[in-house]
């Protein structure tokens, strides 16, 4: 148990190191002169050759790949992401501000999505194969096919343009978060509904349930004690994995609704070729997902000792 957890941590560290190297290599070998792009982003059109050279030196672009990688990875271990090459400001505080917008949105979306998914799944499994089941599955299939950006635009069209009930652009008041969270949540709900539905059906099909029912245990107690826990295990892990979907969704949603956050931060940074900022977002994301996967793997092993014997 201990050694397999140690193994997992080691594996996570390797994955992190790999991601850091891949990101850095990608940035380093990206076409075009990064110094020129940075200079353009910083000084607009007043760019001369001297300015470009100055930027090159300042951004540490004039040394080789490995020295540059070492110079970057060293401070990174202490969460020092360096300074933005465009604004010159420290990256970390700006990144944290972005995170403080994205995380609440993501959690609101997740909460809404899980609630809708549970509701739909319960309705669907009341009578499997009945019309309500088909409608719920149909809605879920449709939801999985709708891209977040289109759904967001449709919601804006309906609630902000036609009905004028809710604000659409920006993030000034909590009301501004309703439509983005709705967009994100419906996407989550679509993918979760089918999984929750099938794990409820599977849990109900456990061979010992008829025996318990015949002994006279009321069905509400059976649902609580035998069906729900069995169905919960895969669902909990999947909610964890939904995080990847949430972040992707958040990137799109923030751009559609003009909200500040990690997505906007990333896209702006990419467009300005602000390498330290891009690196920071990538490393943070990798750290986040490696940690989530690690926690899920460990939970798996705690819940079910059968897992972990072989290399999955």
């Amino acid at each position, binding site marked *: 148990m201990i050694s397999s957890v140690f193994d997992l941590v080691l594996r996570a560290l390797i994955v992190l190191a790999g991601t850091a190297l891949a*990101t850095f290599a*990608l940035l380093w070998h990206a076409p075009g002169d990064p110094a020129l792009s940075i200079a353009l982003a910083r000084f607009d059109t007043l760019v001369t050759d001297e300015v470009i050279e100055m930027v090159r030196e300042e951004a540490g672009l004039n040394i080789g790949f490995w020295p540059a990688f070492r110079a970057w990875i060293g401070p990174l271990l202490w969460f020092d992401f360096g300074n933005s090459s465009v604004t010159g400001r420290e990256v970390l505080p700006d990144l944290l501000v972005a995170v403080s917008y994205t995380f609440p949105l993501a959690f609101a979306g997740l909460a809404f999505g899980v609630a809708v998914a549970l509701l739909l799944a319960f309705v669907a499994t009341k009578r499997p194969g009945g019309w309500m089941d088909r409608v719920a599955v149909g809605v879920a*299939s449709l939801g999985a096919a709708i891209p977040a*950006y289109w759904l967001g635009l449709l919601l804006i069209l309906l609630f902000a*343009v036609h009905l004028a009930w809710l604000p659409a652009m920006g993030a000034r008041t909590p009301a501004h978060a309703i439509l983005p969270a709705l967009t994100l949540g419906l996407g989550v709900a679509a993918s979760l509904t089918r999984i929750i539905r099938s794990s409820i059906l599977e849990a109900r099909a456990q061979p010992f349930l008829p025996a318990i029912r015949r002994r006279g245990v009321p069905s509400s107690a059976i649902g609580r004690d035998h069906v729900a826990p069995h169905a919960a295990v895969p669902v909990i892990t999947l909610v964890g994995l939904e995080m990847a979907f949430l972040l*992707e969704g958040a990137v*799109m949603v923030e751009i559609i609704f003009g909200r500040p956050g990690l997505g906007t931060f990333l896209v702006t940074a*990419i467009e300005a070729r602000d390498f330290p900022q891009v690196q920071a977002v990538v490393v943070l994301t990798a750290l986040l997902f490696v940690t989530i996967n690690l926690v899920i793997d460990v939970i798996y092993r705690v819940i079910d000792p059968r897992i972990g014997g072989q290399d999955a």
Partner: protein
Amino acid sequence: MRSVLVLAGGVGLIVVFGPVFAPYEPTMINIPNRLSPPSGDYWLGTDALGRDILSRLLHGARWSLGLALLISLIGLCVGTVIGLAAALGGRLADWIVMRTTDTFLAFPDLVAAVVIAGLLGAGTWSLIFALTVTGWMRYARVARGIGLSLRTRGYVIQARLAGVSPWAIARWHYLPSLVPSLTVVWTGMFARAILGISALGFLGFGVQPPMPEWGTMLLDARLHMRSTPLQMIWPGLAVVISVLAINLAGDTLRDALAEKHTDR
């Protein structure tokens, strides 16, 4: 399997013959008729430059569906080769491949694709590269898993003893068993590629204007949401219908395979 063939045939037909049915040139600018509502002349209306939306959608299928097909097939080949290499290549190869796969899987694909496509500079080639780099892992995992389970089968051991080359073993004993599962994975990745292409197009990192890719069209249409909301509906609808059709075909195939499995 038949549902997937029908699907592939349908996609092929739309991609090859769709533009034939387009009433206008997709890039023909006609400012006097800009932002016109659907009519007898322009069935779905025109966009901000007066281009016929129906024609653009039909031509756009080449980009949105054709590129997605291409990307998902490249991913299929790359992923299968990598997965089989892991399963057949010994412990070290397996370790390296699995840690690489973990690294790529540790990241939300779309975010990775945005970073890669954005940094390589917007354009079709970087789009293909970005979505391929982020789209091979599922194939590799499935191919490796099945490959590992086949390695101890009697007929594979016999082939090894007979001195059959690894290529011939992969060709005759591994690939046939991989086809059904990989086809299911492929339908999912095809749908993902369509969503990825249009998402990157919508962000401005994908296919560049004036090419009529569906996501790029949506990006244009967004500016005129208040005046002509319908213009925004069509490209999104095209994406949704395509993805829905592909997912349904994939589900049908998966159910059919599961049934076959339990029959035995």
